[in-house]
């Protein structure tokens, strides 16, 4: 399996193919619905973002509180489609990659191909396992949002699937077709 370092080089992203499994190590930023709304409001108003997300990767995740003696609480992807309204704005601003689960809108697929970004999927509902891939978790913005605050994560060997590659190929569509071809 490919081992990748995050934040990603654009060249590395352009070499990934939809459906490929990878493990990533490095730094991610969490953001869900409420944080996306605030980020896009700031960009629309021409303001600086509270966190510099240029070239960074956003993980659509709201972990459980960190229990004593652990680096992070349980963590995993939330449904990406709820971020679709905000994603083209953030990709055009300069976010490189996203991690979530589920299919994206046509507008997001276009923006991914236009910007050479990549959308990764993490397995949903494997949050106890994924917590073991988190080495550090700290709030860096919007603390008032609780679990929806932006957190900086240091991750090690986090397993992901390339869901939409930088050319806009969709592993969801391809995977279902491949299975149905094989089973018939």
């Amino acid at each position, binding site marked *: 399996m490919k081992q990748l370092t995050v934040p990603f080089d654009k060249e590395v992203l352009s070499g990934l193919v939809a459906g490929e499994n990878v493990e990533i190590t490095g730094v991610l930023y969490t953001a869900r619905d409420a944080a996306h709304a605030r980020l896009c409001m700031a960009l629309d108003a021409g303001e600086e973002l509270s966190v510099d997300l240029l070239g960074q990767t956003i993980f659509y995740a*709201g972990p459980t509180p960190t229990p004593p003696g652990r680096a992070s609480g349980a963590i995993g992807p939330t449904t990406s489609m709820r971020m679709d309204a905000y994603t083209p704005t953030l990709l055009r601003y300069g976010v490189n990659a996203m991690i979530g689960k589920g299919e994206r809108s046509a507008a997001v697929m276009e923006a991914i191909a236009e910007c050479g970004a990549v959308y990764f999927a993490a397995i949903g509902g494997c949050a106890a396992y994924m917590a073991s891939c988190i080495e550090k978790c700290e709030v860096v913005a919007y603390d008032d*949002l609780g679990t929806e605050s932006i957190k900086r994560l240091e991750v090690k060997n986090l397993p992901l699937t390339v869901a939409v590659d930088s050319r806009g190929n969709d592993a969801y569509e391809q995977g279902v077709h491949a*299975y149905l071809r094989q089973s018939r």
Partner: protein
Amino acid sequence: MNTVREIHADEITQAVADLCIKACTLLPDAVYGMLCKACECEPYMSAKETLKLIRRNADIAKEQHMPICQDTGMAVVYAEVGQDVHIVGGLLEKAIHAGVAKGYTDGYLRKSVVSDPIRRENTGDNTPAVIHIKLVAGDKLHMTVAPKGFGSENMSRLAMLTPSQGIDGVKAFVVETAKLAGANPCPPIMLGVGIGGTFERVAELAKEALIEIRTQPHPDPYYDALEKELTAAINELGIGPQGFGGQTTALSVRIKAFPTHIAGLPVAVNVGCHVTRHADVTL
């Protein structure tokens, strides 16, 4: 005359707190069994690997007392109150809400509830719970806590079909719901289907059908056959675990039917993920 049995509100609060933590960290045996069976039967290799990881996650959650999923849900609480029970020291609903607040705080569970659906401010302790109270015979209090994650809840649907649409209309609506949900609700999914009643009752039936996680065949052979047919039809969609293709899209479909009006055929589908969970206790 029956004697009245007293149950203190504090006891209820503590029981609910314990149930919240238990439900979020311990996958019901029935669901775990379905996952194991799916791991064995799944013919598509990448799908099989995903199912194995999902099963391993449930093992880790149990061993390390960690939540199975980070979405520890909105707490849905069913309280069956024996009519010979007298609750002392406070109100039942208040005791349940307090238990949810305590469980989600003490158990390091995620607080995912906002106080108003439009203005959206987090309440900070995962309250309020959604509470269903039923008066039953006896002098016991039976409570079930079923934390509901919204990745799957958002994919649920309700339709007021007409009698002429009949069984074919119901089947089409259920399968269409699974298809529209796609990868979003973290398949493999579990479906609770309500048929009949009224607008609000059919949604409750669907939730009850999902949450009770029945492992026995439906007592009515007609609905037993329908559950099996719908499960097979959904698994032919090829969505597979996490939506990347495979045989295992639905672990189970469970139906609850109720009498309805001559003019109506309400149907509701409550979508659950592979972390469909609950815990219950009798006081």
